[in-house]
């Protein structure tokens, strides 16, 4: 019971930090003005065009594709796999399990391998490509280790050391109603959950902020129409003399 309570509290804390932390960062991005028009051109000239541009960035990693095919390949394999794995995990939180979650289950299982492959590829490049090694901090390696750890402990439960998945589901659905149901004391499961909670906690303080960040990036989300529509924000140097001097030398 001690472990159950410990993990229950851990996940409450981790969830709170994740949500509040992300909320604060996102509010910061949203509150800060973008005082000048700085889309990287050629850029769309309409809102709809910007939605399309953002879509190709978020779903296809368009800019990264232009930059480097290897990083793009490993990056997109990892992210798509992660998305499938996350969606597959909804079955441990939702009752009844929606049909579409049931349908992606087989893909989600394979995706775990793809996730490991993508992460391994990125890590190999980080270690062996001189330029990327140069720009890497310890935290960049640790982040990959953490994600890889999550993937490998998860895989081990699917194929090597099975866990009582029904009990796990009862534990998590219980948490959502503030009930503590016993968590199976299986080392791989506990390690898996520990790493996941760790990831949730560091999310709002780390480079994982790229996930909300991309949507707020002015070089990608601004419409290229500065001549047609005057872009004005309430930033001090703009408002200080908002009525410009009229005519002639001073």
């Amino acid at each position: 019971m001690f472990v159950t309570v410990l993990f229950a509290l851990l996940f409450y804390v981790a969830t709170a930090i994740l949500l509040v932390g992300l909320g604060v960062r996102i509010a910061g991005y949203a509150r800060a003005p973008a005082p000048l028009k700085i889309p990287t051109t050629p850029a769309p000239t309409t809102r709809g065009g910007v939605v399309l541009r953002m879509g190709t960035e978020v779903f296809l990693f368009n800019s990264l594709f232009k930059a480097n095919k290897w990083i793009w390949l490993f990056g997109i394999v990892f992210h798509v796999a992660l998305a499938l794995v996350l969606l597959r995990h909804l079955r441990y939180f939702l009752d009844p399990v929606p049909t579409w979650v049931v349908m992606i289950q087989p893909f989600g299982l394979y995706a775990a391998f793809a996730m490991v492959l993508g992460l391994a590829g990125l890590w190999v490049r980080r270690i062996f490509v001189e330029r990327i090694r140069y720009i890497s901090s310890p935290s960049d390696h640790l982040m990959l280790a953490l994600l890889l750890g999550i993937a490998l402990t998860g895989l081990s439960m699917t194929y090597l050391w099975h866990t009582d998945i029904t009990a796990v589901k009862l534990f998590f659905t219980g948490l959502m109603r503030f009930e503590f149901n016993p968590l199976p004391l299986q080392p791989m499961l506990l390690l898996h959950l520990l790493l996941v909670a760790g990831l949730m906690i560091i999310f709002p303080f780390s480079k994982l902020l790229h996930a909300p960040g991309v949507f707020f990036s002015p070089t990608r989300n601004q419409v290229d129409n500065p001549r047609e529509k005057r872009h004005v924000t309430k930033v001090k140097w703009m408002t200080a003399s908002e009525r410009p001097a009229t005519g002639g030398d001073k």
Partner: protein
Amino acid sequence: MAKFETPEIKDETVDIPALQTGVMSHSKPYVSQDKFQAPLGFPGELVDNWKDVAINKLGELLETNRALQVFMDSCVKCGACTDKCHYFLGTSDPRNMPVARQDLLRGVYRRYFTLPGKYFPKLVGATDLTEEVLGEWYSYFHQCSECRRCSVYCPYGIDTAEITMATRDIMNAVGVGQKYSNEIIGKVFKIGNNLGLPQPALADTLLGLEEDVKDETGVDVRYPLDEKGAEVLLVTPSADFFAEPHVDGLIGYGKVFHAAGISWTLSSHASEAANFGLFIGSAENMKKIALRIREAALDLGVKRIIFGECGHAWRVAYSYLNTLAGPFDFLDPRYPVPQHICEFTYDLIQRRALTLDKSANDHRRVTFHDSCNVARASRMGDMPGGQFVIPREIIKAVCNHYYDMAPDTIGEATFCCGGGGGLLTDDLMELRVKGALPRMSALKSVVEEHGVTHMAAICAICKSQFAKVLPYYGFEMDQIVSVHQLVSDAIVLDAKQ
């Protein structure tokens, strides 16, 4: 200045070098002095509590510039940008990889503005702000030409130019400014242009141009200054008034206006298109310079504003002028404010309003260098990418022999000339020569493959930079030409007479 070797052009158009750590750490432009700092509102020397001032300034910029906040947080060190900067490709110094340059500021941001940086600095690459760090800032943030090439390739659109501008703004706030840019901005405030040419000198130069064109063509083409009631105010970089090949472009603009029968004027008050406030990341100074154009337009009672060939100027004009000095509701609403001279000329060509003799340029085989800030920070015409199409269509309309350079070196992937963003100064000659390497490699390919003789550009900085740097790579300095110089040579004036 230390001697340096001109890099060797390799077979690959874009050759990625092995890292040579710190080989450019000695590169620093002359530091500004009190007399150049004061007119811009900056302290004249390093202030006593400079660390506090710098951190406060960074905090203020984070709160007032969403881009900076997002860019500081979002980098995942994926490495996509590491081989994209011309200064890295030309110098091999890893600090010139865009992400490494950004990290000079990001490390300080993490240390003072994020939790992990406060408690685990080593783990996340956070650094204390020290004099050594300030020195690295001064060196490497003056090895970025704010060309935005890296921002094209970043999956989050992180633009190193924004980070360079912010850091230069912080450095100015603590009293460590760059002499070249700040002295020039002072000249604009005092006299009206970067070169410090007063009204009488401008008038004299323009009169000389009228005589030259009369001698050459027998036609009275006018180059008017401060003429009230003209239809168009032309704002052009002051280098156009006398530097080569810039002035040949200015002669071309005059001929185009003459052929179109549209009255125009230059202004001595706004005799500068370039806005160096952009380079130093100072919105206040950028706005002050931009307002001169509004004042001139009102004073002269013009109906349209057109900009001459100038890269960063066109960025500020196209993207910022409306914000900084608008609204321009007193101008003729039928035309965009402002217009680029290439848009103006292209429109005339399309309407067949110009008589052009292409054979006049038959001795030239031409390629076109897309200037970085026109390519990645502006537009021409009404469709995205018009900034690539319109200048090329103009060249093709006046030249029989046109050849593009390799696709990964033009358009949105274009390389900076090596002298942009406030680096066009003799105290940075080594950086300028080395930074030109990717463009010189691409040029050499089309010279060998297609016998290209001339490279045309629409930026005063590009033209000055190439005129200086071409000889280092075995080319002639006059192989760089203005686009409107080609127009000028092909245009047939008063053909109907």
